[in-house]
């Protein structure tokens, strides 16, 4: 798990696995986030693997870190090794 202040935005792609309506109600707003996070709701992850690059670090974020942990558990089984949880409570 990483905190927002250790995020290097140029080397990391943020994947927000919340539902679109959750993001609309509580958008990620932090000056350390300079590039638009990609929204892939957790249930859609298996069908959208082609959107996830293996040559970049992927940081997953959600509402309470639980879905993010599930996402990285799933992706590690799929061969992704540069993945982490971006602690929502640090944003």
């Amino acid at each position, binding site marked *: 798990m990483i905190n927002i202040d250790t995020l290097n935005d140029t080397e990391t792609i943020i994947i927000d696995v919340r539902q679109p309506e959750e993001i609309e*109600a509580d958008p990620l707003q932090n000056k350390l986030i300079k590039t638009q996070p990609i929204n892939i709701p957790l249930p859609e992850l298996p069908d959208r693997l082609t959107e996830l690059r293996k040559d970049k670090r992927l940081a997953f974020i959600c509402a309470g870190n639980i879905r993010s942990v599930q996402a990285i558990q799933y992706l590690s089984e799929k061969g992704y090794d540069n993945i982490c949880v971006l*602690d929502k409570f*640090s944003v």
Partner: protein
Amino acid sequence: MTQTWDINGAEISSRLFLGTAGYSSLDALRQSIESSTPGLITVSLRRENAAGKGQSFWNIIKEFDIPVLPNTAGCYGVEEAITTAEMAREIFDTNRIKLEVIGDDYTLQPDPYGLLLATEKLIDKGFEVYPYMTDDLVLAQRLVDLGCNILMPWGSPIGSGRGLNNIYALRQLRERFPDKTLVIDAGLGAPSHAAQAMEMGYDAILLNTAVAKAGDAPLMAGAFAKAIEAGRAAYLSGIIAKQEHATPSTPLLDKPFWHQEKS
């Protein structure tokens, strides 16, 4: 109307507890504290240590002579919550801990099983646990059995602004635990929600999002403070029972009081 009250032996000046996360600026936070003069200020150790806010946040907290209630926001495991609580005790020099163990990511619903385990361990370690819980009656009884004197049921999911989702369950808690301190924690949106809970006899209200995300946070903080005082006063005054039919407010028509027979 503002009177001090006692919570587990500590004298508290207000029945509003205010969270410190998610304000548009540190100045908005400071002004919200000023306008509502809360009895306790809750602080998320994980959030404030990590969010790059530096010393300025802590300076604001120190400006006010208000007790701090550290919380374990963002913890979804028992051991993680216990570690966070122990860190908070060292930093704030208080045994109080608002215990959050989250069980569901979509609703941020507390995990009742994890909450009980963490409560038991923290009480063994000498903590005064303020458990953030659902409105479940049996869970409340188990927490009391473990030694909790304070219970903090949710009104509705954190940040949802829905108010009191389950009035029946919340009334049951109040009736069944008349000697325990009950604090509504989470889910309120409008001051009327807070007044409603206080009119039911709840002891205090813990707020964060409803104030932090309001268009004018300090104004909303003040509005909540007034609603909580009004609700408490109404509870102490004795609210009349609801009836199906009208009852004339002047029962003896055409007969002035000086002509009424004395009983």
